[in-house]
């Protein structure tokens, strides 16, 4: 599903590479934690999967396609297959929950009839069916993140990328979010989640890939946040 072949990424005017010779493979349906300190390359990894950046060296494959060979007008099509969730939720403040999720569908040309059907389903999945007409400002952090997840999942992507989704949430709320991501993973969606949250990682015991200074230093199938003993 995601394959990195000897990928190095050096940003212009930087001396140290953001990613340094990373080779790894994520299979379909996996749940992977991407851990590491700030600046270790987690966000760069996610940006490369979305083709928001191009690797300086090496090749990135997503869903069997070599991103290096993907023409730029095909990139939107790639991104429609990938759902993204961020630490700062990235909702539109002047649109309701329903409108926020609908926006993502309208913008890729889905007809209104389909949208009207999808939204209740996906709001139900994230547990926000009764808050469909609220504005983001009226929701708690956890609820806002659920909206973001609903938006990311509405188009049934094959991959869900999460960049520190629990970064702005308290531990109890974070657990709820992780349960949701787990449920989504169980439907067959590959999930890659970059995180600082050691508690979550330790409690879920999934594959852990650790980055340090751009290099992959650990790839453990049922790992914990720090080195386990």
């Amino acid at each position, binding site marked *: 599903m995601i394959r990195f072949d000897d990928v190095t990424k050096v940003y212009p005017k930087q001396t140290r590479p953001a990613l340094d010779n990373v080779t790894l493979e994520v299979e379909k349906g996996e749940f992977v934690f991407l851990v590491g300190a700030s600046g270790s390359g987690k966000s760069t990894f996610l940006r490369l999967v*979305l083709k*928001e950046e191009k690797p300086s060296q090496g090749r990135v494959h997503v869903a069997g396609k070599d991103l290096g060979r993907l023409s*730029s*007008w095909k*990139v*939107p*099509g*790639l*991104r*429609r*297959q*990938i759902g*993204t969730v961020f630490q700062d939720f*990235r909702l*539109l*403040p002047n649109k309701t929950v329903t409108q926020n999720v609908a*926006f*993502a569908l*309208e*913008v*890729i*040309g889905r*007809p*209104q009839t389909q949208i009207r059907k999808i939204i209740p389903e996906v709001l139900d999945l994230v547990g926000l069916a009764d808050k469909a007409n609220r504005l983001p400002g009226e929701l708690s952090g956890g609820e806002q993140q659920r909206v973001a997840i609903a*938006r990311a999942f509405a*188009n049934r992507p094959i991959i869900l990328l999460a960049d520190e989704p629990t970064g702005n949430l308290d531990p109890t709320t974070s657990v709820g979010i992780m349960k949701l991501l787990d449920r989504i993973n169980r439907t067959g969606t590959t999930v890659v989640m970059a995180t600082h949250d050691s508690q979550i990682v330790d409690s879920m015991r999934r594959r852990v890939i650790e980055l340090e200074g751009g290099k992959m230093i650990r790839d453990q199938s049922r790992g914990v946040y720090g080195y386990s003993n």
Partner: protein
Amino acid sequence: MRFRFVFSELAIGLRKNVLMMFSVVVITAFSMMALGVALLVQRQVGHMKHYWYNQLQVSVYLCSAHSTNPNCPTAATPAQITDVQNQLQALQPTVKSIDFVDQARAYELFKETFKDAPDLVKNTSPDALPESFVVKLQDPKKFNVVSSALSGKPGVDSVQDEHAFLNKLFAILNQLRVVAIVISATVIIAAVVLIGVAVQVSAASRKRETGIMRLVGASNLYIQLPFLLEGIVGGLLGAVVGFAALSAIKVALIDHSLRAVFGAFGSLVEWGDVFYTLPFILGISILISGLASFVTLRMYLRD
């Protein structure tokens, strides 16, 4: 392509950027008005040339009681008139036809020519007008033949070739046309830059939306289209306002003022000419606003 979505985004953008849109419309309107003036002047020259070069005539004005020319101590005598006529006949075939216009007919022609200026007609009595020979030439450039043969002859006040006057008039009109084109081109450049800036400001104010659109995989066209349309709407409105201004000029300046004085020199521009400018104004405004928006967006909203 979901038109409803594109148009709702367009409406949001227009509402948010009213002031910028206003300046875009004003500047585009001005440039299109200048362009329209240039085109109208061009049509005017065309009208005049068409009307007058068909006339191919030279007027030999005979001395009248009111002549100020020292060559005219008295009004032309019948003998002098016959002499001039013989001179003209001798110039055939350069001279194609000779027509004597007596005072009565001169007055009728005068009334007809200045029918839009009743005050002028009222204050001119028939015997104030000189008699003349109206001579049609085979070749209008041979004016000098008639002039050299008859200028200064007894009984001849002046030999007038409207062509010389008209050529001066055309020269002035052409200069006016060039000035109008230069003004128009300069303001069009300003409009192009302004439209580019307006579109950029609009896109910048919607960074959140466009960011999310890119993230969820909206195509570049879909993202850029509402802003592109904003630019074009501004250009089109400017064209409409510019055309309205041009029509107002036509009514206020030409119909009310110029027609009385210059109506004699063939038809002035009519509504048909004003509407002739419309496709140019619409076409050019759509072209410049579309291009300005498109190029700016591609540079600015690039991945």
